[in-house]
Structure formats: structure tokens, C-alpha cells
């Protein structure tokens, strides 16, 4: 999976939980949850959907690495099979 494909997947997931927002307008370093007003319940659902789609295990301790778009893409790329 390329970085662009992964980013698209993230955008699609975010649109599902925050339909009125525009994830594509996120700057790479902006905090996703605060910027798009996503609560912890929706964010957990978003991660569950990512987990199902990508088959990557995301331990709770790593949630902090997923705060920004940039961080999320880097974290998931490193976890995905090459």
C-alpha cells in the first residue's frame, strides 16, 4: 500500500465518523480529533475500522502516536507488511 492509498483510507474512515467534516483539509501536523471534533467513542470506532481493514494491531499505548495525520500515516506504514 502506498502512502497516498493509506491516506485515502484514513480520510474515508474519518468521513464515516465525522460526515460533516472535510478530512482532506487537515494539515499533516494538526491534531485530528480536536480539529475534526471527534470524541473518544468515534475515534475508537475509527481505529476498529482501520484495524479490520489493514489487519494491524494497534495497542492502546500507541494511541498517542496517532494524534496527527502525519503521525498516523508513519505509524501505520511501519506496521504494514512490506
Amino acid at each position, binding site marked *: 500500500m502506498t502512502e497516498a492509498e493509506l491516506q485515502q483510507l484514513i480520510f474515508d474512515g474519518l468521513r464515516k465518523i465525522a460526515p460533516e467534516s472535510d478530512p482532506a483539509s487537515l494539515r499533516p501536523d494538526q491534531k485530528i480529533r*480536536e480539529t475534526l471534533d471527534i470524541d473518544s467513542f468515534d475515534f475508537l470506532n475509527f481505529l476498529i475500522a482501520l484495524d479490520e481493514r489493514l489487519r494491524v*494491531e494497534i495497542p*492502546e499505548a500507541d494511541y498517542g502516536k496517532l494524534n496527527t495525520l502525519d503521525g498516523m500515516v508513519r505509524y501505520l506504514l511501519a506496521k504494514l507488511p512490506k
Partner: protein
Amino acid sequence: MADFVMPNLGADMEAGTLVKWHVKSGDAVKRGQVIAEVDTEKGIIDIECFEPGVIEQIRIEPGAKIPVGTVMAVIRGAEEAPAPAKPVAAPEPAAPTKAPHVHASPLAKKIAAELGVDLTKLTGSGPGGLIDREDVERAAPTKKAPPPAETARAKVSPLARRLAAERGIDLANITPGPGGIIEQADVERAAAPAKPETAPASKPGDGMRRAIAAAMAKSNREIPHYYLQTRIDMSAALKWLEAENAKRSIKDRLLPAVLLLKAVAKALGDVPALNGFWIDNEHRVSPAIHLGFAISMKGGGLVAPAIHDVGEMSCDEIMAALRDLIPRARAGRLRSSEMTDATLTVTSLGDLGVESVFGVIYPPQVGLVGFGKIIEQPWAKDGVLGVHPIMTASLAADHRATDGHTGAQFLDVLNQHFQTPETL
């Protein structure tokens, strides 16, 4: 025979539109069964049946907008015989062996006696189907209105008299407020033009805004709030939660909100005075703990549906309840019991940056517990200054029902429960 009426689904509701029936005449119904859908300001609500029986008659057709208290259907009790074919001359069926249980407030009983209303024929709109004063007054509307001569003698405040004269309103046509005195507000109400059924250019969400406005204005008008807050060290609770979640696949993980709800339920078990209602000038402690959980709606507004018997649920069950409730609340698909049964409301604004919440109580409840964000802060413990995750818990409580001492006891035991998360 019981009337199934348009229930009052909140301190703010005046009317609802019947969307559809799930039952027809002759169907047997169980207690808690969803028998109708009603459109309200807070979305479409699945209306549950209060008692078992058989639908004797459907009185309202889908599409009708009807006031709270309007009879929608007649339900024959499980033990009653079907209504006689010729109801005019036929004697009433023999009274059931056991006198029908009347679940009514003392004031409602008193007013019912004065107005000659048969309480066994009413369906309560209060918590748990309780018949309150408004139900009784609705059932006797013709008897409630005093004869005109009497109204003419009603006391009128000078301001009200002047206002009425200015606007050309006949004081005899105005129903006096509490205490039998016509005041400015009563005149203004009479002067206000009748609201059109469909307000022009009303946006979706306007209704919910108005509903919240009505409930919160009532709360601040009638409830003398007092506020307390305390800071809670969440180290132990978060450590426990982290260990629990490490054992689970992501699908089964618990959110901190689960712990908050469980701890509040436990603390209410220890200090029950905050769990219940203030109705008809009376403090009514509820034996059951049904926590209202404030859920913000996308695009504004909120609902606080009840999660039933939280104290008896495991953390996994509470998480499952949240998973069920939050999407339904946001899609506008709640059940009537969820709209009416909450005995105390919990609001967590911790997802945003705020540290504490000073809540407005949802009447007729007598307390609201608020949680802020868990923030790492300097914290002295056992003589050592360290950095701990700290959360501020606040309590807004009704001073008519409890005093600060009770509120302080509650926050203290709440804190203790967070220190022993394994017992939650």
C-alpha cells in the same frame, strides 16, 4: 382497562407526532414492548408499553400531532374480560380480585380526589409511569378551569393589569399563575399569538434547541443549584483500565467513560439521596440507579438517555450499552424509557480540553455529575511531589433535596471508588 397516552418524554415536551403503530387492535402486548413510534424534538422515539394486556382500540392515526396526555390507544389488562359488545347498558366487569395498584404522587392523589378523577384510569407520564399532578389536571381539564365569575375575582398584579389594558386583553380570559394571581407573564402568554403548527423556515435541530431551552430555563428558574468539585487522582483507575485493555482486542476495549459511569453508580449506592427526583415539593429517592449519559449531537444539541441499572452491570456490559446507545441517540432512535427514566445525569466533557463542568440539572432530577479532561498535573502524595493524571469531578445538586454536606460525602466516596478500580 388502561388508556395508553402520549407520554411526556421530557420536562420540555408538549406534543408529539405519531409516526406509526407496531401493533393493531387485538394484539397482545408485553410490558416494555415497543408499540409505537413518535416523532419529537429529540428524534423518533420508540414508545414502550407500560403494562401487559391486549390492544382494545387504536384511537390515533399515524401522522397526527397530539399533545402529551392524549389517549392514543386503550389497552385491556391481561386479566380483564373483553369489553362488552353493548357498552351502554352493560354493567362494568367485576372488579379484579386485587385492587388496581395506583402509582401516583401524594399531591396527584389529593388533586384527583378534589377534581373527582379516577386515578386507575390514568397513565402516568412521570418517572416510572408515576401519575403526577399534571396528569390529573389534564384528565380533568373541564373541571380545572374555574368558572368565569371566579376568574374575574382573581388577584391581578398592577403590572399585569396595565399590560392587559395596553394590549386589550380581557383579564377574565386569563388563567392565573401559581397562587391564583395573574402576573405579567400570564398576560404575555395570553397575548402571544398561537404558534403555527409548522413554523416557517425552521431548520432541523431548531426543535431540539427549543426543547433544551425549555428544560434548562425551567431548571435554572426552579432549582436552587449548589456546586461542589474535587480533584481526583486517576493513576490507579487508568492503570487498571490500561491492563484490562491490554488483554482485549481493540473491539472489546473499554473507554474511560465506562469507569466514570460505574464509579458514579457505586457512589450513588453509598449516598442515595442524590439519586432521584424532586416532584410536587417532595424529594423522592429512587431505589434503582438509571444514569442519564449526556451525548452531544453532531451539529449541535444533546440528549441524555438513561442507561438502566448501571450499578448491576459489569464494565463490559456498560461498554456494550454505550455502543448501543450512542449511535441510536445520534440517529434519533431512542426508546421512551430511555427518555424518562434517568435518576441522575452524568456529563463528560473530557474529550475537549475543559477541566471542569458546572452543570444544569435536568428536572426533575436532583443532581448532575460532571467530569473534565484527565490532565497530568503536579500532585503531592505521601510527601512526594510527582506528576499524576488528575481529573476534576463536579456535582451540581438541588439544594431543595440535599445539602452541601451530602454532596461532599458523594464526591468523597466517588473519589474512593476511583482509587479501588478493581472493585468497580
